[in-house]
């Protein structure tokens, strides 16, 4: 946060609440995965909450967000109800997609959340198409595609960056650089670890942002969104962050050097924002209320989700064709 004098405490408290909602949702997901209510591969974004919180406040209802399998937080920040999301993860009929999407591939288009994606980099060209449609349908829609650092080494992402730049499409490319591409350090897989620099080669602005600070993310997102809406084309934002957990639940994280996670915990978004708000004079009671409201919401959502019936196998073949 840096400059406590200019901290907008109302905005900061709202951000803190946004961070907590994602954090507590993710903790609940972990709990349900470990208890067996949720099965399969689950990728948490604990520590990376500032990205969705900072970006999504800059978006309108018509704008389209495309995320990755680490997308729970982006969906929540987009307004997707936690109960329908948890029901989806737990394979319930009331899930967003009735259990067809699961943790890694759910979609909630009515909230402007057009899916997670389990194929690294695949969402970027699709987001380009959503922005392309905005050129013809008069909606003024822009598209945000979120991906990890590893996705910048995928061909599809390069094709999307170039396509969007060549046609000046309203796409915001958001790279969440958490320093690891799945289990491998990004630094070992690129010669130039400042990934935002690639933007220049495509003829678009690229910016490295403190991805653990929702206000810094918001400022950068606003510039990118304004540029996109003005028809000036795409922007690549590189949000520097760290995940405080493994790539997936069950990841032993033996690839992470000792002390790394502990250090990251000192710089994670909630710790930082809470300290900054406290320094700016926000009371402990207000700070605690931000957390407890989120906890109450998620607890209630989990109860609703788990009370719903298991998805009916008799419907498994529905919706393959029109």
């Amino acid at each position, binding site marked *: 946060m840096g400059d406590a004098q200019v901290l907008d405490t109302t905005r900061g408290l709202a951000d803190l609440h946004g961070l907590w909602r994602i954090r507590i949702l993710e903790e609940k997901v972990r709990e349900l995965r470990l208890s067996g209510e949720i099965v399969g591969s689950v990728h948490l974004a604990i520590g990376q909450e500032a990205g969705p919180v900072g970006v999504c406040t800059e978006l309108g209802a018509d704008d389209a967000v495309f995320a990755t399998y680490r997308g729970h937080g982006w969906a929540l920040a987009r307004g997707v109800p936690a109960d329908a999301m948890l029901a989806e993860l737990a394979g319930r009929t009331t899930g967003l997609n009735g259990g*067809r999407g699961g943790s890694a591939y759910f*979609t909630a*288009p009515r909230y402007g959340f057009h*899916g997670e994606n389990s194929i690294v980099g*695949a969402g970027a*060209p699709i987001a380009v198409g*959503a922005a392309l*449609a905005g050129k013809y349908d008069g909606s003024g829609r822009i598209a945000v595609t979120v991906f990890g650092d590893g996705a910048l080494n995928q*061909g599809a992402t390069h094709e999307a960056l170039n396509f969007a730049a060549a046609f000046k499409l309203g796409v915001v490319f958001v790279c969440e650089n958490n320093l690891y591409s799945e289990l491998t350090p990004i630094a070992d897989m690129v010669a130039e670890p400042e990934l935002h620099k690639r933007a220049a080669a495509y003829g678009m602005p690229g910016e490295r942002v403190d991805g653990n600070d929702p206000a810094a993310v918001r400022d950068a997102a606003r510039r990118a969104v304004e540029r996109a809406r003005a028809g000036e084309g795409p922007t690549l934002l590189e949000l520097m962050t760290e995940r405080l957990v493994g790539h997936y639940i069950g990841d032993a994280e033996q690839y992470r050097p000792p002390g790394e996670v502990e250090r990251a915990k000192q710089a994670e978004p909630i710790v930082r924002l809470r300290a900054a708000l406290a320094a700016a004079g926000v009371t402990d009671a207000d700070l605690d209320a931000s957390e407890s409201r989120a906890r109450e919401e998620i607890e209630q959502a989990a109860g609703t989700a788990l009370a719903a019936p298991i998805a009916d196998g008799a419907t498994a073949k529905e919706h393959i064709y029109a």
Partner: protein
Amino acid sequence: MPEATTTAPAPAALSLKYGEAINAALVRLLTEVPETLLYGEDVAKPGGVFGVTRGLRRRFGDRVFDTPISESAILGSAIGAALMGRRPIVEIMWADFSLVALDQLVNQAANARYVSRGEAPAPIVVRTQQGNAPGACAQHSQSLEALFLHVPGLRVVMPWTAQDGYDALLAAGHSDDPVIVIENRTLYAGEKTEVRIDGSPRPAGWTTVRRPGRDVTVATWGAITARVLAAAERLAADGLEVEVVELTWLNPLDLTAVLDSLGRTGRLAVVHEANVTGGFGAEVLARVAESGVPLSTAPVRIGTPDSRIPAAPSLAEALVPSVDAIAAQLTKLVQEKP
């Protein structure tokens, strides 16, 4: 009482080559369906490397545009645009090139409707062309329909006549599913034929009995239908009557048309240009076997042997089923004792 129209009605039929018929269908879709977008590599200003999209940029402006050589971005953006209500028709210049972006077809387009329970389908049309022709090389000559047909969620049509080319494009453009229209470049330079261009879009899934016969049913599709018909003509001179059932749509497949024909002939051959192993011919045979319809002799698959396709015409012709080879195998099939 018919209402007075303010515009002159289009002629009901035109004399068109195969590629021109497809162009006419694109004109109609771009005219009648304002959400239609048409794009791909070299399709707009150059009018397509085979000329199929000629004149459309001039007529429809920026709804028709050229793209970078980026198959993932072409297919992926089509999906994204379709998710937002556009009706994109994209060209993958050679079917072989779709392989560099198969993720967008298999993992993305085919899943969109299913995962969202119908809330967010991706009705895209992918026009491509495939098959062997003189001077092709190994990466410009494959027949890939079976690859697409293995993927639930995708529709596949392989029109052979100009009329079917027109009807297939029109049906695909109105379909709410992702449809892959597989053309064949050997057909583009064919004769002009009468093509009806009025009327409602034909529902997907049609099959045509191109030639009636009593001795053997040949189920076939795509450009090789011409060779099957030539073989059938030759055999007719020897008194052997081949019934040729052309499956224009492979998904949805009209199996009934094949079974009906087998009720008349009792013998089945499948002829396709694609490799035999895992080809769609194997699927047709399997479905016929499952149907329990009695056959008087064992069915046969006639296709390209499991080989790569060479560049030299003499080598390629040695592999792709010729009229002679088809005729010989059909003769052998019919001469087998029941």
